[in-house]
């Protein structure tokens, strides 16, 4: 396999790997490092890639495991949680600005979710994978995934409606 072949295989999902890593590790730098590491691992095991039916699903599983390990490891103690676009929560009159604020707010709410729910929400609502695919990636059954997803969505909805009500008045 040449580099070009590899890049062609990896291209379609490298952003997804990165976004999942960022969802879990929060900081952009950490996520970039993780993505780099995962792509290198794939490259080093390139002979095996052809054996896997679904390289993308395999990579996502790898990303999940890698990031969770990262979080557990001692390094995680030094991990900075970076809010790259943090804004002061001043009540602004302009509606657009307010909307941006609440978009930020969504990311904060998701950050507070349990890891399992974060991963599932990321895979479903952002990457738009089928439940079947998510089940394969996480080695969970579909019902459990739906339950976790439902919980995550409800949490976000509730917290958003609260801030929405208070935010305007």
């Amino acid at each position: 396999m040449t580099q070009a072949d590899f890049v062609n295989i990896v291209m379609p999902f490298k952003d997804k790997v990165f976004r999942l890593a960022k969802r879990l590790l929060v900081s952009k730098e950490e996520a970039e490092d993780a993505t780099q590491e995962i792509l290198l691992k794939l490259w080093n095991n390139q002979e095996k890639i052809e054996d896997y039916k679904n390289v993308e699903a395999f990579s996502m599983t790898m990303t999940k495991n890698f990031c969770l390990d990262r979080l557990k490891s001692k390094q995680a103690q030094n991990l900075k949680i970076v809010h790259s676009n943090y804004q002061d929560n001043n009540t602004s009159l302009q509606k657009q600005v307010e909307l941006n604020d609440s978009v930020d707010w969504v990311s904060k709410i998701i950050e507070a979710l349990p890891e399992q729910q974060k991963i599932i929400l990321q895979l479903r609502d952002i990457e738009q994978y089928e439940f079947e695919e998510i089940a394969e990636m996480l080695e969970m059954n579909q019902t459990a995934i739906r339950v976790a997803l439902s919980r995550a969505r409800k949490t976000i909805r509730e917290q958003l409606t609260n801030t929405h009500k208070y935010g305007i008045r």
Partner: protein
Amino acid sequence: MVLDSKHIERLLEKYDNGETTLKEEQQLRDYFAQDTIETHLEPYKPMFQYFANTKQETFTKDVPLKTKKRSYIYQWISVAAVIVIMFGVFMQFNNPSPKTIDGLSEEEQLAYNQAKEALNLLSTKFNQGTSNASVLGIVGTQFDKGAEKVEYVSEFSKTTNKILKKPNKENKNK
């Protein structure tokens, strides 16, 4: 396409329960991407907007992909080694059958015969030498026998002394 809010509300309920299909979720995303939405559905907007924004994020860092050239070199070295070994084995088996004296040239035959005679001579002389040495061995054994006999003699003289002494003592006591 404008969807009525009742339909959206139904979808949202399903959405909250995690029961929507990807198609239905796409409908929701499309709806919330509009500028004008029902006010009571407003709280959902930032959520879908956030999802859409996040999807734009891309991984831009370069990944240095190193080709494993070294391992190829080692592979070729092993191949070369195998070839050398095979060549050696091939040569070993392919060698003409061991040479006989008939196959040699006359000069070589002459040299061979001379060497053979010389060695024969050497071995006969050597055998003579060993037979002489065996004579020495015989002498040695005879000598040992003689020594044993001498011991008998000395033993005999001891007992005779004892016998001779005793009558002396008895005489004294009387």
